[in-house]
């Protein structure tokens, strides 16, 4: 129990802070923050698997998150049959062309081992393949995108349950990670950071501009959700009764019937949104706990010890006969899959997919700050980092506003400096996060909850 004192203390503080938000701002806001904290926690678990266990820098978290989000669209949206009729066949054909290209290149690589012309033949295959795809796909894409562009204009998805898409989101991310890992994992740490960041940018720009696939910057709204809708709850008798019972003392104080009905309606509306958020919280909490159990078991298994050995000294680990390349690839794929899962969860929570919103600041660097602040190599730490940093990220503006008002009380209400500072309060979140990161890196480089090595 003594070992867990720090963890319990840190988490209690965090829960207390969220409760404070509930009491002073509103329970709805508190739950929104909590849900995002849980999603961030899943992302940090993923990043921590890569950075904490194996020392791999992945600045491409943004790309995996977006792919997870795309999976939600592709799995849960209803298919657009007209679009499939208009151009589905051609696009499937393009898929075949790509497949043939890959097989051909594989064959060429294995057949001509030493041929000088190999490079030229392969580039010829690639170029003709690309031209062929361009030729087949461009009219098809045009006709798909022209079908009711205000509402659809894309192929749609498969119409399957949304929870299933979470798994697929993880698989998508894992697939991308496999390719990226094959390409980039041999690079030195800082090169790897840059390369993964830029590959993620490529992924984002494809998602953003291939309208037939993801509707691009037109966004996909009204995605399915695994929780009931507010409006259904408000119309169902059992829910109204529940709210009535819950608030019975407060409602009994009101004498007039119409006033009582009005306040009941208001309460039901509030309660329905809280109920939906609670459903999500339960779901996310389940995922986080499941992941925590799995990662915790993995970390203290022989496999986890092997990963730490590789992280701490690659040379000696490889001298002991560990296949470093394979292990790195495996852990890269696993971590990215978790990040993809988080991306799918986030899109489900929002109910909309906005490719334009995936920016490196929010989806790579902030997540990294979470991992570093929380504690690298410690799963509890990573989750805590997700909570703390997300809480600060959201609450920085109110805190900054409070501080500005405190320090500028001697200035007149209309003073230019004061007005300017109050207007720029939202940007203090960058300052708080940045300074927080610098202080942690300097004085507690292992994070709030440092890595614990269990000796066997």
């Amino acid at each position, binding site marked *: 129990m003594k070992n867990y004192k720090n963890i319990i203390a840190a988490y209690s503080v965090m829960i207390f802070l969220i409760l404070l938000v509930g009491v002073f701002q509103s329970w709805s806001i508190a739950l929104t923050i909590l849900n995002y904290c849980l999603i961030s926690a899943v992302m940090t678990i993923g990043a921590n698997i890569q950075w904490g266990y194996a020392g791999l*820098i992945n600045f491409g978290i943004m790309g995996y998150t977006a792919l997870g989000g795309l999976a939600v669209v592709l799995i849960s949206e209803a298919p657009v049959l007209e679009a499939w009729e208009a151009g589905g066949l051609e696009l499937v054909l393009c898929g075949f062309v790509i497949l043939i290209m890959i097989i051909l290149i594989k064959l060429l690589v294995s057949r001509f081992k030493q041929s000088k012309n190999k490079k030229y033949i392969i580039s010829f295959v690639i170029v003709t393949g690309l031209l062929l795809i361009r030729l087949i796909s461009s009219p098809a894409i045009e006709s798909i995108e022209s079908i009711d562009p205000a509402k659809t204009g894309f192929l749609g998805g498969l119409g399957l349950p949304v929870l299933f898409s979470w798994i697929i989101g993880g698989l998508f991310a894992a697939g991308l990670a496999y390719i990226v890992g094959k*390409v*980039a994992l*041999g*690079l030195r*740490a*800082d*090169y790897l*950071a*840059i*390369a993964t*960041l*830029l*590959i993620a*940018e*490529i992924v984002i*720009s*494809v998602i*953003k*501009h291939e309208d037939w696939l993801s509707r691009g910057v037109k966004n996909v709204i009204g995605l399915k959700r695994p929780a009931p809708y507010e409006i259904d709850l408000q119309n169902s008798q059992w829910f109204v009764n529940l709210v009535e019972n819950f608030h019975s003392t407060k409602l009994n104080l009101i004498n007039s019937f119409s006033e009582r009905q009005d306040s009941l309606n208001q309460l039901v509306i509030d309660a329905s949104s809280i109920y939906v958020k609670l459903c999500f919280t339960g779901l996310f909490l389940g995922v986080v706990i499941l992941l925590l159990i799995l990662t915790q078991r993995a970390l203290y298994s022989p496999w986890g010890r092997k990963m730490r050995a590789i992280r701490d000294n690659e040379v000696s680990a490889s001298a002991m006969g560990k296949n470093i390349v394979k292990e790195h690839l495996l852990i890269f794929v696993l971590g990215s899959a978790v990040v993809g899962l988080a991306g799918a969860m986030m899109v489900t929570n929002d109910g909309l997919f906005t490719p334009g919103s995936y920016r490196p*600041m929010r989806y790579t*660097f902030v997540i*990294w*700050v979470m991992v*570093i602040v929380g504690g690298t190599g410690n799963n509890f730490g990573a989750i805590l980092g997700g909570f703390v940093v997300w809480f600060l990220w959201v609450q920085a503006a109110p805190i900054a506003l409070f501080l500005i008002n405190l320090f500028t009380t001697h200035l007149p209400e209309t003073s230019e400096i004061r007005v300017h*500072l109050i*207007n*720029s309060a939202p*940007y*203090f*979140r*960058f*300052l708080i*996060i*940045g*300074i927080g*990161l*610098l202080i942690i*890196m*300097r004085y507690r*480089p292992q994070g709030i909850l440092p890595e614990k090595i269990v000796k066997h």
Partner: protein
Amino acid sequence: MDFLNAIILICNYTILPALTYGSQLALGAIFVTLIYGILRFANFATGDMMSFGTMFSVLLTYYFQSIGISFGILPTALLTIPFAVFMMIFYMLTIDKLVFNYYRVKKSPPVQLAMVSVGVMFVTQAIIRIIIGPSDRRFLDGEKFILKASEFKEMTGLNEGLTIKTTQISTILITIAVVSLMFWFLNKTKTGKSMRAYSDNEDLALLSGIDPKKIVLITWIIAGILATIGGILYGLDKSYRPFVYFNNMLPIFAAAIVGGIGNPYGAFLGGYVIAFAEIFLTYAYKKFFVYLLPDFLEPSSLVQFLSTDYKFAISFSILVIVLLFKPSGIFEGKKI
């Protein structure tokens, strides 16, 4: 005649813009490469540092305009360069003293320094947004064009006009001047040579009595000059917006790595490689072929390899290809 028209068209829409954009990238890439080669970390605050210098130039330009100082037909912002550079160097040295120095003395691994630079990135971004705000700002004044399309058409009698913007010419000329001065400094002066020695082999350089503090100081000074000038030129050519500067960090990194990180010559050329690739691959060549080819061969489509949406993606793909086949960069990195 058609042939000349085609050439002018290409010059006007691809070569001149690519040279300009390439120069701006090149300045940034040399900045990245110097920090990487001498201070030994990937600086993720690159874009924001450039933005920081430019911010002072924007503010000073507004101030100069308000008291009536101008630079004739050239943009007033060019007058503010020395002041902005001074502020930038001051900021960089402060950050170095407060943040980077500690890790350098401790000989932390480069990854840790890169992480720290992410922290610096956050702080710099916050300072910029608090001071000047996130909105788009134009601070270009003076004559906008050196040569207008209509004038060129009258002069030559061609169908296609060539426009030369003041910002394009000043960007190219200033880049050439700054970069040649820097190469002269690195190759011919004693301090420059000691910087190269330090970059090649730190321990050996220290043994032969090179003062590391002085090297670091000079590196930040050169970096400050490059970052500020690169930023100001980019801002004059397009416009100043903090978010865009942050994003520019990515093609700049691509340029530095493509050229071989740690190698200023490579970075300089890498900037142009990235710029030319971006613009050549996204330009629609339809009109060009209409001029060149006989009537029956004229293309019906736009003859565009990739839509302009993929501009950034191109530079990153080049980077990935280079990393795959020649990880040390086209021009061999880690030398200075």
